[in-house]
């Protein structure tokens, strides 16, 4: 049952081969056994999970189960959960028991999903290794001395180690796709605006987007279908009908199921900077896509290399504004000793935020300050448009864009912890997608030289989630990379 896909779990639950309470207990016991080592969860909510599982069992008994009723899940700790500690990986929110649910949490609760607890993450989703978490780094289930990626590292590690079958995440510059690649699972960041940001603690509002983790594209499709939908409480939520992303997976098997699919390979993604083992693995996966009927064509994203500098203006600018709400007045940490009000703000924020969060707030404050706004913020926004236009031009020649998710496999814990710029550069293939607001997916493509997973990224036009999931599903029907498991999940 630990390794079962969501459709298999659905059948077992509906056939009463296992109850939701038994299933939740199975995963909770695995969390108890493995989490001390992996540190994938900040909070385990055994009582809440069992209560939700009992309710799910009642729905199943009444034949009122939906696709996800009774299925256990881990929520990234960026999502507010009523009555459950919601830390966002920060000391600032170490005592924040949320008084309300995020929209995504409400939707999944209503679907009968059983939340096992809150997954570890980089503080306020700022990081690519999960090492900026106030609650300690997460370990990569494939090799415990490696990072799981970030910022949704706990969610990805939990699914890879089968501490949960599926997990939610958020992706501002790669925070779903990169940890999915490092942990050997599938993760999708949908088009900006599809998943409501209500109750999702904000980092950079024009980039933040909720996403889904699973062992396969099929599991991701099931979860994503339940997470999307218009929400009037998010001013950027898109008013469009919800989609059943599993419909795209249902086409009958064929020898060349991807016949007609044109895959664009950006010249800039295959240039220098990609490790040899990643290149070889990605090339082999693309060959598999061609075997399945797809054709590949070279495309160009000439401004892609500017995505990182532009991102490190735009995201910090938005973060400095968003995180001004943490002032020690309405919620969160307040310093024990202070003088006047300004001193209370400054000390509470100095104590409550970690080093990386402070750096990004300071950068944002600077680039938005008088005299620098045009040179930094407006220039970054102009580059953002050029980058978005590059994607539109490339997508004239292809249906999806493919390349590596990351330039290397997971690096060693501590290796880049003191070198923020080096870590920023590791997001070279994912960040541009957020700037444009496009959907992106990462799926396992094979393994690198050190036995660590390599991810292949698929990027589509706006609202092409079904196409991305469909392509990845066909690949996974023909290969078993996504079914390989780390030793701790055996």
């Amino acid at each position: 049952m630990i390794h079962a896909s969501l459709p298999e779990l659905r059948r077992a639950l509906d056939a009463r081969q296992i109850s939701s309470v038994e299933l939740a207990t199975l995963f909770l016991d695995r969390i108890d056994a493995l989490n001390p080592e992996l540190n994938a969860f900040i909070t385990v909510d055994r009582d809440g999970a069992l209560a939700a599982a009992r309710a799910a069992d009642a729905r199943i008994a009444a034949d009122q189960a939906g696709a996800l009723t009774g299925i256990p899940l881990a929520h990234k700790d960026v999502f507010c959960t009523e009555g459950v500690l919601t830390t966002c990986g920060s000391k600032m929110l170490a005592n924040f028991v949320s008084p309300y649910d995020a929209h995504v949490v409400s939707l999944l609760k209503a679907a009968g999903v059983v939340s096992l607890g809150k997954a570890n993450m980089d503080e306020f989703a700022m990081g690519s290794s999960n090492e900026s978490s106030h609650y300690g780094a997460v370990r990569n289930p494939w090799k415990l001395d490696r990072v799981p990626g970030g910022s949704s590292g706990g969610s990805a590690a939990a699914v890879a180690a089968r501490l949960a079958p599926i997990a939610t995440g958020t992706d501002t510059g790669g925070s779903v796709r990169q940890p999915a690649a490092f942990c050997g699972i599938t993760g999708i960041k949908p088009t900006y605006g599809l998943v409501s940001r209500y109750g999702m603690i904000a980092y950079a509002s024009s980039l933040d987007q909720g996403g889904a983790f699973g062992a396969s594209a099929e599991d991701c499709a099931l979860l994503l279908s339940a997470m999307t939908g218009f929400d009037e409480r998010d001013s950027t939520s898109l008013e469009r009908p919800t989609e059943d992303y599993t419909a795209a997976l249902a086409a009958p098997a064929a020898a060349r199921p991807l016949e007609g699919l044109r895959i664009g390979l950006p010249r800039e993604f295959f240039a220098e900077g990609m490790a040899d083992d990643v290149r070889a693995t990605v090339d082999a996966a693309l060959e598999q896509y061609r075997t399945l009927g797809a054709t590949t064509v070279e495309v160009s994203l000439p401004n892609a290399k500017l995505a990182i500098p532009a991102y490190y203006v735009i995201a910090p600018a938005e973060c400095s504004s968003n995180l001004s709400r943490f002032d020690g007045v309405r919620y969160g940490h307040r310093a024990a000793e202070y003088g006047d009000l300004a001193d209370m703000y400054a000390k509470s924020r100095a104590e409550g935020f970690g080093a990386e969060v402070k750096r990004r707030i300071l950068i944002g404050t600077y680039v938005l300050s008088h005299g620098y706004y045009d040179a930094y913020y407006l220039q970054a926004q102009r580059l953002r448009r050029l980058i978005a236009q590059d994607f539109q031009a490339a997508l004239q020649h292809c249906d999806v864009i493919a390349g590596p998710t990351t330039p290397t496999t997971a690096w060693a814990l501590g290796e880049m912890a003191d070198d923020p710029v080096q870590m920023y550069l590791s997001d070279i293939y994912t960040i541009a997608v957020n700037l444009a607001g496009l959907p992106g997916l990462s799926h396992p493509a094979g393994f690198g030289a050190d036995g660590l997973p390599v991810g292949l990224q698929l990027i589509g036009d706006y609202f092409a989630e079904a196409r991305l999931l469909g392509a990845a599903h066909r690949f996974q029907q023909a290969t078993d990379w996504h079914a390989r498991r780390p030793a701790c999940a055996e």
Partner: protein
Amino acid sequence: MSLSNEQVGNIARLARIALSDTELDATRAKLNGIFDLIEQMQAVDTAGVEPMSHPQEFPTRLRPDVVTETDRRDAFQQVAPQTEAGLYLVPKVIE
């Protein structure tokens, strides 16, 4: 580009983050490294390009000006560091 300790101190003051003198040096070194990366942006001529503030460019939605939320003050104030009689308490600001 190179920020001085004085500039970093000023940014930190604007951001309401207390920085000790020892933190100031380390922070300045890290920020300067990040700004070296950011400066790469200046190599591109973007004259005539409209800034893009958001991926979905649609007009802001309007809704009727009516109350839609219920009063949950007690629940929201439970997570506050210090409250009294429904008010948030902060150090005295008016002498």
